[in-house]
């Protein structure tokens, strides 16, 4: 299904970035750096931004905020690309020097991360290079040739056009990021792009605004503006970090709650976790958005929680082989427990309706139902004859009433691709 297109696209992106980088570095080294002081100041800023990068987590479970792991570095790079004046004097650096400085600074900032064994996060650097090159190509030639001054001037319209340019750059970055994610994970392009665009509203817009403010601030006040103007963005980064930390803790707690049924012997070891991962993958395949995927994941983790209220464990925890009325009753009990947790009400609805016929279910509940049945039937204890193939076959037989055919086919595709993508930590 995924074909080779995305892989070629990734190769193309990497190739373009590599060629651009080599050309820019070569040109800059050959002709020398113009205005080395400014280049150094921005280089240091970008390096510091990269150093403060958060734990690299670019998997499918990354928060929208984590799409931009080094906001300060990104803002600094954009500001350098859009810098036209410094304290009222025009600057003369060109596109190639911008690219060279950004690459050098990004690589310098990556050294400690590599030393700590985190890996270089090359995707991130490639995206940064191409995005900054785009902004610089749109701005610097126009500005340096004086055309910008004639048409736009250096007044309020300058700020307005800068904002427009940044919006374009952000869109370009989102398209690029979605294409790279598609190549890495094989998920459909549309939902990935939608998630990237949604992330723009959060940290993305803060980064763009700070980039513009820094460029304008330096133009007015000189390099003094750099340290002063990065404070609000640092604050934003800090709040995103705290938010991410509490999200992680929350996920851990929900996972623990989900593990209760396994420890009690109601469900097989690792069942909730497997169902959650596989549900997420199937949800991706079906094009669910990031918030929907979170609801799906929580619901999948807690889908068996209702069994805690049972006096005796169901044989092997395989609810899929119970009579429908019994399944539905357990589902309702689970919903009652889930409603007491702090998760959104949608999660409880999914848990409650997981045993209904698929035509009466919301899509998330259909996914949880099919994936749960698959995990029950494919395990040794599930009462099925074992093996993923026979489990899928049984699901296909049930598509008339119990399981939605599209969901089962997505599940089959996910399994055929090798099943699960790397699991989220925690």
């Amino acid at each position: 299904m995924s074909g080779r297109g995305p892989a070629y696209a990734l190769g193309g992106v990497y190739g373009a970035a590599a060629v651009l980088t080599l050309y820019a570095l070569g040109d800059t080294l050959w002709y020398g750096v113009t205005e080395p002081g400014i280049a150094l100041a921005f280089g240091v800023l970008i390096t510091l931004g990269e150093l403060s990068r958060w734990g690299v987590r670019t998997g499918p479970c990354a928060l929208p905020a984590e799409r931009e792991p080094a906001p300060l570095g990104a803002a600094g790079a954009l500001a350098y690309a859009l810098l036209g004046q410094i304290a009222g004097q025009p600057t003369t650096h060109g596109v190639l020097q911008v690219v060279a400085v950004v690459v050098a600074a990004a690589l310098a900032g990556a050294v400690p991360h590599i030393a700590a064994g985190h890996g270089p996060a090359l995707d991130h650097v490639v995206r940064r290079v191409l995005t900054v090159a785009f902004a610089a190509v749109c701005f610097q030639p126009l500005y340096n040739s004086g055309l910008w001054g004639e048409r736009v001037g250096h007044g309020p319209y300058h700020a307005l056009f800068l904002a427009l340019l940044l919006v374009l750059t952000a869109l370009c970055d989102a398209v690029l990021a979605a294409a790279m994610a598609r190549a890495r994970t094989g998920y459909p392009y549309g939902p990935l792009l939608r998630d990237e665009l949604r992330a723009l509203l959060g940290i993305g817009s803060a980064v763009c605004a700070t980039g513009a403010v820094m460029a304008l601030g330096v133009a007015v006040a000189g390099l003094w503006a750099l340290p002063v103007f990065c404070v609000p963005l640092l604050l934003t980064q800090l709040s995103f970090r705290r938010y991410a930390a509490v999200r992680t803790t929350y996920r851990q707690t929900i996972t623990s709650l989900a593990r209760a049924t396994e420890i009690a012997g109601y469900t097989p070891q690792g069942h909730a976790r497997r169902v959650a991962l596989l549900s997420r993958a199937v949800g991706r395949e079906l094009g669910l958005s990031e918030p929907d995927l979170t609801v799906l994941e929580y619901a999948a983790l807690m889908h068996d929680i209702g069994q805690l209220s049972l006096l005796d464990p169901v044989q092997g925890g395989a609810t899929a082989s119970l009579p429908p009325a019994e399944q539905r009753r357990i589902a309702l009990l689970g919903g009652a427990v889930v409603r007491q947790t702090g998760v959104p009400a949608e999660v409880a609805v999914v848990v409650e309706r997981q045993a209904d016929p698929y035509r009466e279910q919301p899509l998330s509940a259909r996914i949880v139902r099919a994936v749960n049945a698959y995990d029950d039937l494919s395990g040794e204890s599930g009462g099925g004859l074992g093996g993923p193939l026979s489990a899928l076959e049984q699901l296909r037989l049930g598509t008339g009433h119990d399981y939605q055919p599209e969901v089962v086919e997505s599940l089959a595709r996910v399994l055929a691709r090798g099943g699960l993508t790397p699991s989220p930590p925690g």
Partner: protein
Amino acid sequence: MRALSVAGRAYILCALIAAVCCALPALRPGAGTPWRAAALLAALYTACEVLGRRPFLVSAVRVGSGSFFPVLLAAVLLLPPSAAALVAVPGALAGHVERRPRAVRRVWRAAQLALAAWCAAHVRALLDGGAALGGGAAAPDFPYVLLPAGAAVLAFCLVLTALDGGILATAERLPARTAWRGLLLRSVAPHCVQGLAGLMTAVLWRSPYGPLAALFVLLPMYISCWVFAQYHRERAAHQATIRALVQAVDIKDKYTRGHSERVGRASVMIAREIGMEEDRVEVLRFAGILHDVGKLGVPTRLLRKDGPLTPEERRVIELHPEYGHEMVRGIGFLGEARAAILHHHERLDGSGYPYGLAGGQIPEFARVVAVADAFDAMTSTRSYRRARPVGTALRELDRCAGTQFDPRMVRALARALTRQGWHPRVTSDEQADPRGNVPPPRGGDEPPAPARGGEAGSPLAAARPNDPGRPG
């Protein structure tokens, strides 16, 4: 909401009169107030406050009010004092107020902000901050401009805290020292960050790029406030989930309803008494609340069994600390609490379970939770016996101190109890929901069971404190 005290009313009235006196000169003809800038800034501040009242975009998260001091501080740097005072008024009147009486609070807030802005603008004018901002062709005078800006922010912050302390002292009748203590320290750092943003706004406002460029500064600030609000929402959800874990235990083992919360409370009392640091106390509270979470892994039939347990059944129930530890292993923030959950049934003489640790081998948290657990088990009513008075329970704990309990923790609990008393009340009163294949409760027709498993070592219950056969 109780009525406002006379002193409180008088205080607010004084502030109001002072604020009006500050703002009035701007309205005099010939005052030279830059009306365009003032109106724009006032509209901006109002817009920010009103936006803060509404859910941001799609998610229903409020942005806390008072997050938009950058606009006010920019006004302080840009405008004459009386005009800066005026800018604060419409936004403060329109902003979101959490508690009643809303009208009074709004008026108070407007007066307070106007006064603070007026004072800060005077400080700025004294240090000649207006010219240092530059404007037109002149570049701002960095780094000198940081001095008037910093002084103005400090003045703003000082006036706000002084007025806040005053209202706490008069209206809420707090002693003046407690009212002021910590207020200033807590507010300086956030005000400085907001002050930097205000300075940037002011610099860009004066620059050829104009007010539009200044708006860009506010976006990151706004987003960080929004994320912060989301952080609070998520944290509340997390706490609800922890409660749900506890309630899940309560559903299974309904004899011990409220036990977990009370053990958490008693653990905190002990910890404060022995002078534990505050962040460890918080973790310890979770240890107390979650100590029995492993009972989720014990079959409900065993937990509810009336009548003596067979050795086999007792062994199963004694697995609950290990089950609990296994469950919470993945929750990073619990830290030391995980060890407490695993070891809260160890005894000082090494006869406890699961590992038979003795003395100092038992983690400190576990020793605290063990005492709290036993105390609450003895002082609450069980199906098979009545609750015992606090004094009797303490004597019993004291008798077993050294063999079963850490004497230091027992003494700490006794001291805390004489000082604060013990107010056991069930905080989570929940409905009895219809449960799966759970048998109907077999009420009082059963003979009281002498030994029921899985609960803290209530030595009195069997009058044989070190009976190894008694689980729990």
